[in-house]
């Protein structure tokens, strides 16, 4: 019985390793090299390939991030879901001042090679509003829909 359990555990480990190995093999050299240069200390990297781009999910500073690359290794962008207290203070205070009565349903940072933006989606009883901050100083309305 013990031998059987050991065999099952071993085969499971081998299968999992094989699955991850295949995912890594799917990434071409350019993309992998670009990723390693950009995110030197990334951990738990997991690759997915689509028809047009590569997607890497990974951890950096214990935060989960997702990076998108073209097949030529160009970084298209990085997405990081975040909590409101991770926003720069001026963006937090302007949300409190100007959107009192709304609740946040989604908040993420989107970074490209030389710029970063924040997107926040908020609801109140009547509408859903998405704001964008490109320069980290103020919010602008990205989209607005009535419920």
């Amino acid at each position, binding site marked *: 019985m013990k031998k059987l359990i050991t065999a099952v555990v071993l085969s499971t480990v081998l299968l999992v390793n094989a699955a991850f190995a295949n995912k890594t093999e799917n990434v071409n050299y350019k993309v992998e090299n670009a990723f390693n*240069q*950009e*995110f*030197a*200390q990334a951990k738990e990297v997991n690759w997915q390939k689509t028809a047009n781009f590569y997607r890497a999910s990974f951890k*950096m*500073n*214990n*935060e989960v*991030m997702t990076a998108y690359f073209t097949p030529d290794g160009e970084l298209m962008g*990085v997405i*990081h879901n975040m909590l*409101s*207290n*991770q926003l*720069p*203070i*001026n963006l*937090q*205070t302007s949300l*409190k*001042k100007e959107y*009192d009565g709304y609740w946040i349903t989604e908040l993420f*940072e989107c*970074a490209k090679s*030389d*710029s*970063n933006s924040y997107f926040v989606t908020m609801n109140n009883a009547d509408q859903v509003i998405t704001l964008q901050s490109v*320069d*980290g*100083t103020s919010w602008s309305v990205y989209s607005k829909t009535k419920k």
Partner: protein
Amino acid sequence: MKKIILSLTVAAAILSSSFTYAATKEPGFKVKQAFSTEFTQAKDVEWTVMNKEGVYQAKFVFNNETLQAFFTEEGDFLGTTRQISQSQLPILVAAGLNKDYTDARVVTIFEYSKKDGTEYYITLVTKKGAIIVKATGSGEFTVHQRNVK
């Protein structure tokens, strides 16, 4: 020019471990009004003034975090500072830090949020000694101070 000097004053205050030149003092109406407009839900507010420059500092709790906000005597808002962790850095700053300062140990990080943008002051210990680097939100780094003691 005055704005630059005041901004540098705030930067120095961020990086100073003790405010030896600061004294407890309640500000005038203009400063208090500017503060309550900017921080509608602030709690436990304590005021000090940096005598030399006439800059008021409010230390307070906002969203369960301790912040410092800086104002001129005329009630002009200079910015807000807070200590943050590495996980709170913007992606490009965190990635740049990992890439350009691989062997350095991060000691403290202060966020300095102003009307025209946010800067990050990061104290690092490297093999050559301690340095303070300044980063913009888009990941541009400059050395702010070398040989920090």
